[in-house]
């Protein structure tokens, strides 16, 4: 175990390098209003963040990450394009695993830039790779934007696409929806009965609560329309499944994805962005030939990422979380931007884990 002063010293070293890369230092408060985080992540965040409260400001959370406050700050007052770095503790509630830290230091680097997203992705990735050089880590990369483009391009109803998009980050529910839209799962009896009934169905039971009879009628209409829409074509479903299973080095992954694009042409713009990013990474000296790419990477734990995603893992220490991780979060700037938006990408690194790996080696 490294002590706090060692971790602080290593964090300061990283900060200096991120500053040298052109970032401005920011220092968001430890306490964040809970409302924003709850709106973004839903109730699940309560299992991951410490909640406290006072009578005046209501519920507050000990910051579970820096990205949200940094985005809020940039969108409120920031210049058009900017680079930020920060360093400090984040807090994660642990309910299952006592070996996981509930408080640790993150040093981050975030780029807000409209001009050249591919170059910004490559800049962030190679800057992190540089800090971790010599630790022999495995880098994992992915791109949630390709899966999103595939869903948007399906030949089906807008409602179905919206439902799938909403569950991109919940693979099990996504899977269940896909099976239903493919006509692979039987319609539940209750649903069949509901849809076969004629006339106005609402009114026999007492109406209570805020969800109104009109909302129920609306949903039944939606269900009727959905039942009338045909299943998603087999070739699209198979292509989508093939896409989610892509796990290769970057050049082979691109080859497979180009094949998949025959059935899902909507992913072509996203693939072009992957090409541009790969070229930009190569230009910065990243060994893309041997870099791993997983199309489903980042779907379970990184809810706000919607494009490029990456993580650095110590293969000798599978018990450790990623030493560094990050990604692109364009949509988050829109959600927190109060009308504004700007493409953004960034990541964080954990100095405590670096020290622990260095300790293993010596």
């Amino acid at each position, binding site marked *: 175990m490294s002590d706090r002063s060692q971790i602080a010293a290593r964090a300061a070293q990283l900060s200096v390098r991120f500053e040298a890369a052109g970032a401005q230092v920011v220092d968001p408060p430890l306490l964040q209003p809970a409302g924003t985080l709850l709106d973004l992540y839903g109730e699940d965040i309560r299992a991951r963040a410490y909640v406290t409260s006072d009578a005046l400001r209501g519920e507050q959370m000990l910051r579970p990450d820096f990205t949200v406050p940094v985005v809020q700050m940039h969108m409120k007052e920031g210049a058009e394009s900017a680079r930020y770095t920060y360093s400090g503790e984040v807090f994660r509630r642990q309910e299952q695993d006592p070996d996981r830290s509930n408080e640790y230091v993150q040093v981050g680097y975030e780029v807000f830039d409209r001009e050249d997203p591919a170059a910004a992705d490559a800049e962030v990735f190679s800057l992190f790779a540089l800090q971790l050089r010599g630790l022999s880590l495995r880098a994992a990369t992915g791109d949630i934007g390709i899966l999103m483009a595939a869903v948007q391009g399906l030949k089906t109803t807008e409602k179905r696409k919206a439902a799938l998009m909403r569950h991109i980050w919940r693979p099990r529910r996504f899977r269940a929806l896909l099976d239903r839209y493919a006509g692979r799962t039987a319609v539940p009896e209750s649903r069949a009965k509901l849809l076969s009934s004629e006339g106005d169905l*609402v009114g026999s*039971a007492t109406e209570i609560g805020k969800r109104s009879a009109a909302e129920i009628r609306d949903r039944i209409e939606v269900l009727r329309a959905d039942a009338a829409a045909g299943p998603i074509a087999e070739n699209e479903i198979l292509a989508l499944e093939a896409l989610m299973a892509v796990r290769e080095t970057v050049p082979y992954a691109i080859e497979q994805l180009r094949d998949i694009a025959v059935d899902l042409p909507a992913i072509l713009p996203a693939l072009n962005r992957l090409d541009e990013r790969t070229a930009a990474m190569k230009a910065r000296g990243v060994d893309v030939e041997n870099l791993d790419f997983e199309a489903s990477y980042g779907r379970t734990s990184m809810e706000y990422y919607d494009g490029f995603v990456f993580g650095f893992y110590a293969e000798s220490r599978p018990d450790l979380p990623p030493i560094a991780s990050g990604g692109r979060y364009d949509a988050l700037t829109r959600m927190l931007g109060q009308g504004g938006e700007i493409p953004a990408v960034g990541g964080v690194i954990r100095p405590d884990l670096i020290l622990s790996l260095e300790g293993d080696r010596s």
Partner: protein
Amino acid sequence: MSVKLGVPSKGRLMEKTFDWFAKRGVTLSRTGSDREYAGRVDGVDGVDLVLLSAGEIPRELAAGRIHLGVTGTDLVQEKLPRWEQQVEEIAPLGFGHADLILAVPQFWIDVDNLDDLDAAAAAFRQHHGFRMRIATKYHRLVREYLTDAGVADYQLVDSQGATEGTVKNETAEMVADITSTGETLRANHLKILSDGPVLKSQATLWRSRVARHEPGDKEALTALLDLLR
């Protein structure tokens, strides 16, 4: 020293627990006045009775302040993270049956299961601008269950009593609560989702894995458990 046995301090749960032990040759009884929480154990040596609120028994087991305790599966799983490592189940007692269930208004004819609930929650949030509220006191169990099922766009609001009434009072859209017969739910115009309960619970005898044993305790505990099993 002695082995400490924690038992619910009042009501039917206490009476049925006393009966269950009595059938196995261990007589538990309260001593002193009705209001005094003191008791005694006959039929086995070296065991002390500790009368506690059923809700506090999980915590006392996890802290090792009692060696054995009787309380519901629901309370152990809600209050103790990684409960299997803190307590061992000795025996289900066959009473105090209750299911933790999710219930919605009966007139939500479009909502029968978790799939429906998730879709209805998404539409509700869009329409009302806030996440659908579920009244409960079982925050951790309900949250883990819904996370696992991939349900989003809900929020848990705390309700420590009269939970079934929250929908009518419009402080919640639905509830997650313990029920044994479903009577109270029906009376409040609520119906249970068809996916099955979040948790099936009954009164259970637990052993603390962390409680320390003084000289003689092990023997007393073994003697007691031999009678009970």
